[in-house]
């Protein structure tokens, strides 16, 4: 890839004012920067689930795998293992990764696979018209919960910290500077990174005003202190009307999953036949 045109001809079908635009703009800028700094464009692979968020891969002119609902992570994991030189970025919804594919998310953190997961957390199922998700607050009224959601939300940051994630952050889709900073750090982080982006769905759950009043960017926060990170993560439980901290909560260095696999290749069929023969001879007397 020679020229840096990250746009495609795909028609954008997000609602006007959708928080996904901030994520799209921020990631485009970050990737452009990284390409300028030396990462070849062809080394980026974008993986998405299914939902409004997932359309992002149609809008960026880079390698992509438009996967299934909830299944960003196993795909991204294998791509990274296949070739650790790739920068694998997953885009997923809260329905996608906190609901349908939660098990994969916990395992990605547990394994510390070096992929970046950006969760477009609009706290509703956007594409299927506004049902409640695992991070919708109690009482949320959607078409599947017309009398109010009876469950309490997950706190995804707490879940991720408990599952050994080595990079945990929260962003907000109003403005792109903070998103840019976090995305870049996350992509450069060697290990599993999770960014929960409070991404506003203007049509089904417009929280701009609510968030604007409550969010603040953490200062003097020690990102390497697990207990502090956990405390900060618990400050807002996705249910009550407290202040909402933004920024990088936690990061640590740890061996990554993809590094534990065989490298090297056996290319020729002839080689393989010979090797199989030798293997069989070892079995024989």
């Amino acid at each position, binding site marked *: *890839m*020679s020229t840096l045109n990250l746009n*495609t*001809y*795909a028609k954008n079908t997000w609602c006007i004012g959708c928080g996904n635009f901030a994520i799209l703009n921020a990631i485009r800028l970050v990737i452009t920067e990284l390409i300028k700094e030396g990462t*070849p464009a*062809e*080394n980026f*692979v974008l*993986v998405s689930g*299914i939902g409004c968020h997932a*359309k992002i*891969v*149609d809008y960026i*002119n*880079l*390698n*992509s*795998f*438009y*996967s*299934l609902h909830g*299944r960003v*992570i*196993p*795909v*991204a*994991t*294998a*791509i990274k*293992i*296949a*070739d650790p*030189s*790739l920068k694998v970025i997953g885009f997923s919804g809260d329905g996608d990764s906190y609901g349908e594919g939660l*098990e*994969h998310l916990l*395992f990605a953190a547990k394994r510390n696979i070096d992929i970046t997961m950006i969760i477009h957390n609009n706290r509703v199922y956007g594409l299927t018209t506004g049902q409640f998700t695992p991070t919708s607050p109690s009482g949320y009224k959607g078409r599947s919960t017309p009398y109010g959601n009876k469950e309490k939300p997950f706190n995804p940051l707490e879940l991720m910290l408990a599952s050994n994630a080595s990079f945990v952050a929260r962003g907000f889709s109003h403005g792109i500077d903070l998103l840019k900073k976090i995305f870049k750090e996350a992509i450069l982080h060697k290990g599993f990174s999770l960014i929960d982006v409070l991404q506003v769905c203007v049509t089904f759950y417009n929280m701009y005003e609510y968030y604007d009043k409550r969010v603040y960017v953490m200062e003097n926060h020690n990102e390497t202190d697990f207990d502090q990170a956990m405390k900060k993560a618990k400050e807002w439980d996705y249910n009550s009307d407290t202040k909402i901290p933004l920024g990088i909560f936690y990061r640590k260095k740890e061996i990554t999953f993809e590094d534990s*696999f*065989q*490298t*090297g*290749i*056996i290319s020729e*069929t002839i080689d*393989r*036949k010979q*090797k*199989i*023969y030798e*293997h*069989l*001879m070892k*079995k*024989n*007397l």
Partner: protein
Amino acid sequence: MKDFTILIGGKAGDGIDRASVIIGQILSHLGYYVYIHRDYPSLIRGGHTFSIIRASENKVSAHRDEIDILIALNLETLNLHRKNLKEKCFYIYDAEQIKFEDQVCGIGIPINSILKEENAPDLMRNSCLIGAFCKTSGIEWEIVEKTLGMTIPKHLELNLKIAKRGFDTSRQLLKIEKINREPLPLLTGNEAIGLGLIMAGLDAYAGYPMTPSSGLLHFLASVAPEFNLKVIHAENEISVIMMALGFAYAGKKAAVGTSGGGFCLMNEGLSLSGMAELPVVIVLGQRTGPSTGLPTYTGQTELFYAIHAGHGEFSRLVVAPGDCEQAFYWSALALALAWKYQIPAIILSDKTLAESLYSFDFEKASKVNLPKIIMWENGDSYKRYLNTKNGISPLSFVPKYSAVIKVNSYEHDEYGITTEEPETTKLMQEKRLRKSQFLLDEIEKNYECVKIYGNVESEIAVLCWGSNVPVCIESATRLGLKVIQPVIIHPFPLRQLEYAMIGVKELVLVECNATGQMAELIKHHRFTVKTKILKYNGRPFSVNDLEQLLQVVIDEYIKP
């Protein structure tokens, strides 16, 4: 004795399985073809477990019921299998478990006392019996020593000591003669499938334990360093197949293995493989269903499921190998064809094929011509889904300078960008389905998709597939019948079946399920099965079983 059967039995946890493999190896070393059928319940301790070891100077891949030599670790073994003992049967048994005095044909070994004297753990009981068996059968001590040395990784010294005590406590009752033939290695169907995949270039394997395919996961994990494989035991079968598709996207040839329940979880990914044209090989080891069923027993109930699983219409390949050589050959071919046509390929196996041990003829199995992958050679902007005459779009893998490679689960245009346009939808659907026709033409032209055995002149033909094939060949050949085996199940090799059916007046189906799925399948192609011989109690047919049932069919047929 040039064709004989040994049954070794005890309770789960007695090491029956390992003992049977070692005895199989000893017989193999003596030049025999060996086949081992394993019967074990789904539990870890207790319950009756046995293996039937058949050895012959001719190739055998099926078991017989009559027992020539019984090795019994407990009384239950003797009681349960008494009805099958030949008149002149030899016994080797644990004298402290079984009170049985037969000076002519039996050797009782005081196993516990020996173990106690040597301070050996309980799990060495089988070594003691192996030693005893060899002495009884006139097999030299050197062979025992060599075999144990090859197969026992831990505490070899003590095991040898115990085996020698067993050997010395016995006396020779019969003589298993050496045959002048190079020994063949013993392989399970799972191992043969694994090696076949490796032959065709396997790079990665993902799995989640489930009988009878766990053995494939274990085998590939154990040889990962030797063959540079990336092997993952993932969190569930959904992840397993999605990982395989991620590997395929990055150009790594991947396979997965499971049984019916796990395959259910893979169905959405299977359909994605069809839509995104990402090749994957799925090893589907059938067992007795429905649901959890009989986890450690056999069945052939997924013929239709393999053909129809997954939503939407897309091309796929389904192959059903019948023995170890076929498992190797067709697994290699399945992987190569999956990659050439960018489709999912399902290898239908079952408990019998997956876990039985067979003498494996590598020379024969590895004579396979593998088709090549069609790669993109630079040029104009890359179209992952270029619409070509045969439907195959040239491949390129990340990272590729100058190419943007987009795959998509939504309907998409040639670049892989989502579309809902009616015209493109129609064209792309046709492109994907077209591959099936080209695939069928290629395999019918180049490979034996429907195999014929036995008496080709016979008007009665036995129709069978998968692990039932060897037992059908052996029984039908003896009775002078023809045998027809469709190895390729989908796309259906009709031209080859039509050829096989020439001269056949009566078709008998032998299948391990309750409905006769293969009969239904060929009915679509205007062929009628007259008689169905079905077995669905989890146990495979024995040669004796089947001969009797086929004889009834013959008698009916020749009745005036």
